[in-house]
């Protein structure tokens, strides 16, 4: 087993690193007259975080059974080793000693390593998507949805930027931002729809992953402000100056690099989902209990992010962004680009989910949704499937959050509010659980309704409307809008065919949501 050997060697390396670190701590850190080095509380926190990530990396490594999984886990561990080495070189080994690195060097190293990892991840992601699509039964409806999203990605920016405001097809600036926001909500809904509709995991805390992705990009945007803040402090964001902080907390380091921030957009929700799922699925927490703890998760994060000393701007969150990748964040061109990016991200996310659910993997998900223990008796490790799809879904929600924040210009702890997560579930229910296009449609329709309502005199009644909508949908349209359309379409087909059930091969595994003679490709 080459994989386990890789793991052991890496584990050993880490052990050695820890021992060196401990030795260095003893030698330099704790001595009163240590040559200029101070291991303070922040360093201890940093080392603590590092240790947690290390444990996660080892857990990933031990649960990865395929070669590809081992490679991914190996890379992950290599990154942790790199982080450990940087902590060692920057903080533990004092200046002047061999192997000491000053902070600028470390920053540069982290920037380039992040860029390399991001490039690698992009290549691997494209290869994986290609592998998924190869021989997958996407169906014409799937490609139609992708085509529509890509058309929207091109048409809306073009109509916004290159038509005169008087032109009948002109899309005003406010509409670009508004619909761009809906697109990110749609991506969040898709991530919820994937795990709820196909795997039966009802997450009432997906807003947390969305918000974490948003905070990660928000931190990047905060660092881009530089000295242009109210206090004109080049090193610290305004809220830290206001709180009389003297230096940047370690978890804010490196966020001025876009590759690093982008990685964190996916990694932070992904790692949190992994740790959470690792415990929850392994101990076979399911159904309503799982929903409750996901809700607790987002609530706990809400409380934490509200605190000033948590280090993310407290109550006010992060705002007053100036630019992104050097472009003014308010400029119409930037907004149009962000819109296009959101539409493309949604198209990619949709295509990925579609390919996933139409593979045998997707069939296993539906199988375990309907009969979990039966699936175990066939030899499937149900918890691994749930963990994989939960982590993918969380990273997707993180990307959605990261596209949302630059378009709305603010991220605050309110995004962690349990209501947000519940709303996302309602979008899916309205659009159609057990389909992939349903969440997209549901998120768009419900949010459009919300915009209409909350800008009028009826604003205070929106929660009642939303609740009422949920009740009406569950009672009268249990399959949601898309599911109902599918059902009617199938009835008509059936009547025309008037033959014994002859469905096409259930290609994308969302069989239950559609009636028996379904052509599952419809409306997807």
């Amino acid at each position, binding site marked *: 087993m080459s994989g386990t050997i890789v793991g052991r060697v890496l584990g050993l390396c880490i052990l050695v690193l820890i021992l060196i670190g401990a030795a260095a701590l003893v030698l330099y850190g704790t001595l009163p007259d240590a040559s200029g080095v101070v291991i303070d509380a922040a360093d201890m926190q940093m080392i603590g975080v590092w240790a947690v990530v290390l444990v996660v990396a080892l857990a990933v490594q031990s649960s990865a059974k*395929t070669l590809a999984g081992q490679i991914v886990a190996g890379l992950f561990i290599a990154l942790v080793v790199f982080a450990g080495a940087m902590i060692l070189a920057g903080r533990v080994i004092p200046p002047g000693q061999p192997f000491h690195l000053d902070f600028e060097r470390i920053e540069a190293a982290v920037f380039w390593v992040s860029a390399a990892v991001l490039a690698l991840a992009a290549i691997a992601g494209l290869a994986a998507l290609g592998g998924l699509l190869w021989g997958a039964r996407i169906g014409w409806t799937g490609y139609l949805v992708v085509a529509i999203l890509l058309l929207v990605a091109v048409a809306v920016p073009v109509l916004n930027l290159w038509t005169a405001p008087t032109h009948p097809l002109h899309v005003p600036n406010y509409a670009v931002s508004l619909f761009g926001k809906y697109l990110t909500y749609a991506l969040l809904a898709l991530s919820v729809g994937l795990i709820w509709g196909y795997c039966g995991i009802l997450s009432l805390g997906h807003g947390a992953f969305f918000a974490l992705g948003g905070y990660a990009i928000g931190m990047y945007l905060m660092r881009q402000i530089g000295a242009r803040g109210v206090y004109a402090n080049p090193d610290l964001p305004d809220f830290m100056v206001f709180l009389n902080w003297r230096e940047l907390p370690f978890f804010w380091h490196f966020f001025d690099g876009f590759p690093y921030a982008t990685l964190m957009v996916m990694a932070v929700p992904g790692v949190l989902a992994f740790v959470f799922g690792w415990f929850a699925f392994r101990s076979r927490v399911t159904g309503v209990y799982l929903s409750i703890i996901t809700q607790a998760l987002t609530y706990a994060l809400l409380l934490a992010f509200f605190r000033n000393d948590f280090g993310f701007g407290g109550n006010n969150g992060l705002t007053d962004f100036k630019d992104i990748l050097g472009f003014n964040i308010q400029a119409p061109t930037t907004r149009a680009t962000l819109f296009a990016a959101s539409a493309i991200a949604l198209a990619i996310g949709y295509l990925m989910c579609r390919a996933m659910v139409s593979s045998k993997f997707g*069939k296993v998900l*539906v199988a375990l949704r309907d009969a979990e223990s039966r699936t175990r008796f066939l030899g499937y490790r149900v918890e691994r499937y749930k963990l994989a799809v939960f982590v993918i879904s969380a990273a997707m929600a993180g990307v959605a959050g990261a596209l949302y924040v630059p378009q709305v210009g603010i991220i605050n702890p309110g995004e962690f509010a349990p209501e947000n997560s519940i709303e996302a579930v309602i979008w899916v229910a309205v659009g159609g659980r057990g389909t992939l296009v349903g969440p997209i449609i549901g998120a768009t329709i419900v949010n459009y309704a919300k915009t209409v309502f909350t800008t009028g005199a009826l604003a205070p009644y929106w929660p009642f409307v939303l609740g009422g909508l949920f009740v009406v949908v569950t009672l009268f349209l249990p399959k949601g809008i898309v599911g109902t359309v599918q059902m009617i379409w199938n009835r008509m087909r059936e009547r025309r065919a008037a033959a014994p059930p002859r469905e096409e091969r259930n290609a994308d595994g969302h069989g239950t949501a559609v009636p028996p003679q379904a052509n599952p490709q419809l409306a997807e």
Partner: protein
Amino acid sequence: MDDKLSQTVLYLDGVNVSFDGFRALNNLSLVIEPGEMRAIIGPNGAGKTTMMDVVTGKTKPDSGAVFFDGTVDLTKMDEASIASLGIGRKFQKPTVFESHSVRDNIVLALEGSREPGATLFGREGAAQTTRIDELLRIIRLDGKASWPASKLSHGQKQWLEIGMLLAQEPKLLLVDEPAAGMTDAETAETAVLLKEIARTKTVIVVEHDMAFVRDLGVKVTVLHEGSVLSEGSLDHVSADPKVIEVYLGR
């Protein structure tokens, strides 16, 4: 480990299971040899299904030994790893994946890697397609391959589950009441099918239908109140006064 143990496919010794103080299995011992087909009978609540639960990892015994292939301790493993060893099970209440098509039910059961990566990127090969078609013919559902499993009759679901069991290519098959809810003709066909399967595999069948058990013509174990009451040919156990008392006493 003694010689006898190493020559067994399944070895249960002194197995106890209790639910809230109720002893479902009471010092149960059972030995199944390679290639054997064994019928297990017993009144309702005798512990037949519980015995299968213990073997397949659904229920952990309070005490006792459960070994597969003489050396593999099943009490230390979970359902998925036990299934991966080659122990397949048909449930008393037919449990097929209702929302999947008949064919997809077989696809999911088909022998092969169970890892997420493999199911995500793997594609069905020609050999697998052939095997799936063959299995569908064996269980007489080739004409209904694209039907949702929920549309099948009770008997057809039983057959589909047997097909899924075969698709796993297990070494040991645990078959819980395969003929329940079947017509007489279907029952007879099921007996033929099981005998066919038993030529190459080890099979344990639980059944109440005595005609069916007679059709099988194999060694019978009678369970009662969680332990073995009698063992031998069907004629032998039917003549056993203890067995007669249990069955007539009810």
